[in-house]
């Protein structure tokens, strides 16, 4: 049954500073509310136990995409629609745009935000595998200041994050590559739109003379957190893309991930699909 609407507070601060002061003064009392595409679903199901929210959606400080020579920096409230329509992102970070285009449908993409996708901390989220593969960094702000941290390591357990109660995620930073990269992103769900992933696979690679000079791989829906698969990367990096490499990488990935049975799929199916996606990625890389 739907949550009782009059018991929920949603207060709108005039500025980011005001929002930060509010969450600092009453630690743990206030949680951020952005596009609502996850929280309103919980409200409808009567599964939104927390009652007090700060409406951060109107905060201009958390919007916009900044491009410099070295970086693309996205405000945490950047929507999936804004991600898909940015030329630099389409050219240089195509997996992020693909993830955005395969999340929900247009109405969800107009409201869902990149920052929300990160801090909602679902292991089945679609943009985190791409962000991990691109080695994204996060800026966390509080009334005491700000800190930049690598996204890799931010999720510490199921729905647990390296984030304090007085902090908000403010920006996501991507480093622009100087070399040519190969991008491979596949979301496997029950249908193309409006589906939550069974398995999501993102990999970015730099190939030099048939040899894998660098590789970063991340998967979703195969562990309690979205996982950067470093053992699998090590099985591929500095290797030629021959049959032995493909076989060893596949075996490594199957040991490195730990999918479970749930409403959307089974551990067995996820393990097999993840392995197949890795092989497909490596075979495409070779050709």
């Amino acid at each position: 049954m739907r949550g009782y609407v009059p018991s929920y507070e949603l207060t709108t601060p005039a500025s980011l500073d005001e929002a930060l002061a509010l969450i600092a003064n009453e630690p743990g009392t206030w949680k951020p509310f952005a596009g609502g595409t996850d929280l309103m679903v919980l409200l409808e199901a009567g599964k939104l136990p927390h009652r007090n929210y700060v409406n951060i959606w109107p905060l201009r400080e958390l919007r916009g995409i900044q491009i410099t020579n070295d970086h693309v920096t996205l405000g945490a409230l950047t929507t999936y629609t804004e991600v898909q329509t940015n030329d630099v992102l389409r050219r240089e970070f195509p997996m992020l745009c693909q993830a955005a285009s395969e999340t929900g449908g247009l109405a969800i993409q107009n409201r869902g935000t990149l920052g929300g996708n990160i801090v909602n901390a679902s292991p089945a989220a679609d943009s985190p595998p791409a962000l991990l593969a691109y080695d994204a960094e996060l800026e966390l702000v509080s009334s005491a200041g700000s800190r930049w941290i690598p996204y890799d390591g931010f999720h510490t357990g199921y729905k647990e994050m390296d984030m304090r109660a007085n902090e908000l995620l403010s920006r996501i930073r991507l480093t622009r590559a100087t070399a040519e990269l190969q991008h491979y992103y596949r979301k496997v769900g029950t249908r193309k739109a409006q589906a939550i992933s069974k398995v999501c696979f993102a990999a970015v690679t730099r190939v030099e003379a048939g040899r894998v000079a660098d590789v970063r791989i991340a998967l979703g829906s195969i562990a309690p957190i979205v996982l950067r698969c470093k053992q699998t990367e090590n099985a591929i990096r500095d290797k030629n893309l021959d049959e032995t490499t493909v076989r060893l990488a596949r075996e490594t990935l199957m040991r490195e991930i730990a999918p479970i049975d749930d409403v959307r799929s089974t551990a067995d199916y996820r393990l097999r699909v993840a392995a197949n996606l890795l092989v497909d990625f490596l075979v495409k890389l070779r050709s």
Partner: protein
Amino acid sequence: MVTKTAIELKVNGESHKLDVFPMSRLLDVLREDLRLTGTKEGCGEGECGACTVILNGQIVNSCLVPVAQVAGAEITTIEGVADGDQLHAVQQAFIEHGGAQCGICTPGMILAAVDLLERHPAPSEADIRIGLAGNLCRCTGYMKIFESVVRACQK
């Protein structure tokens, strides 16, 4: 218990001042406070698109928007699509080509199509499929809806 607050918003060109609980769903405010029952509730969790409205020029699922976030906004519902007695080309095409059966998905489907044609006046087949991907229909099998949108573009 949270107290109601006053917000202003513009729906189909008309300004309204309302006292609302901030977490009330835009869907309920439209249907119950403003009596605009053309907007339908399907799943209530952003999966089906029956409650689609246009909010500041973009389609949204009104079941997922708390009303505190639409203070000062401009909203178009199905009641605001026609120009007086003159139906929108999309509405006319749905009538002529059998785009509606039971009618529950129709308002959302039409708003998604109106939004699509505003962004892409001559959409490709793929554009139409992407534009309507968030709207589920359990009657038509989609082909009549698809054909209605194609015909609406030809007007």
